[in-house]
């Protein structure tokens, strides 16, 4: 029985993902999907849009050097279905982000996996369905 659910769950997830179609570039080709790291910093810009939203955050890298990180998130349509709006994040918010690093480190381009706003504990990325394509 457990195996059956294991098979059904990914199939159901794929169907749900398909409901809010986005498309753009290949995530697999752009990011190291098997690696995750974390940044914490101040939100500079929130672009709630299609094909994908972007969050720009000023945060230090592993060596303590400050960078403007471009964090790729879901498309507006897809995030709207998960309760995220263009008012969810504000400039100046201090956020922690777990992300997949980009293949070209000089881009400082990363892919959102999990976000937490420190001031009120708002979270995205841990609940079922909080994903994007």
């Amino acid at each position, binding site marked *: 029985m457990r195996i059956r659910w294991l098979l059904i769950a990914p199939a159901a997830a794929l169907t749900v993902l398909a409901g809010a179609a986005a498309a753009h*570039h290949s995530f*697999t080709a752009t990011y190291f999907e098997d690696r995750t790291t974390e940044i914490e910093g101040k939100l500079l810009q929130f*672009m709630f849009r299609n094909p994908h939203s*972007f969050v720009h955050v000023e945060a230090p890298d592993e060596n303590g050097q400050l960078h403007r990180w471009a964090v*790729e998130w879901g498309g507006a*349509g897809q995030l709207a279905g998960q309760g995220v709006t263009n008012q969810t994040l504000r400039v100046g918010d201090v956020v922690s982000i777990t992300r997949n690093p980009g293949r070209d480190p000089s881009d400082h*381009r990363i892919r959102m996996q999990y976000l937490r706003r420190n001031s009120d504990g708002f979270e995205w990325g841990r609940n079922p369905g909080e994903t994007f*394509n």
Partner: protein
Amino acid sequence: MRYLVVGVALLTAVAAAPARAQLNLVGEWTGRYHEDQGDRVPGDVQGDFTGVPLNDAARKYAEAFDVTRVAVLEHQCQPYNVAHIYRGPIQFRIWEEKDPATQEIIAYRQFSGTYMQWRTIWMDGRAHPPAYVPHTHMGFSTGEWHGDILTVNTTHIKKEFYRRSGIPSSDLTTLVEHYIRHGNLLSHVMIITDPVYLSEPYVLSQEFVLMERGNQNWLYNCTYVMEVPMDKNDVPYYLPGRNPFIEDSAKQFGLPFEAVFGGAPTLYPEYQPALERLMTR
């Protein structure tokens, strides 16, 4: 008496049947991504050219392609063309345009949520326009039924890509589609011909499922922004031989790069002995 009832029922059924269209394609359809999931949803690994009969021109293009080029302002909202759009995350609606006098189907219309693309498949026997007519992402389509299969021919398609990792399509691409319905499933077969970038037809298939409850998320308000801090005039590319990711897919799956980049000969079972030789080299 029993035969009379059966006979009347049969006659009624025949009279109610549509004159031409064999199956009803009307409805809202969404992808089932079990087949080629990686290519269709998250996108493929850089350097995955397997299954594509690419020619030397396509190889040169793919070698120079940097996947971050789609972040350039001019490309962010560029729709997939009709030979590619069914290969990404998509839902689409099909409806019929009928002649009010005869009730015959003049055209099938489609609207896809991805990039909000509109498409018409003319069913009234009209000819395709001359070659100089402007091309669009959805092209110019005519269709006809062959038994229970709707076959669609499309020309006048704008250039784009067959894969997001940089396999290009040209504006001489033509597309033949087969729509085959099985209950609530729709099999969609594409046969793509491209004299510029393909050495032989590229055949793909994908499945769609009827959305019984529909979907309210049909809008795609794409806006241009500086996604990544960069010079807005910069166009990412690689010089020949300098693409550091070109062999990523071959390495990930343990395949010889010659096989991944080999084009049409690698698509057939006859290639297996050659592949084995390369693997044992």
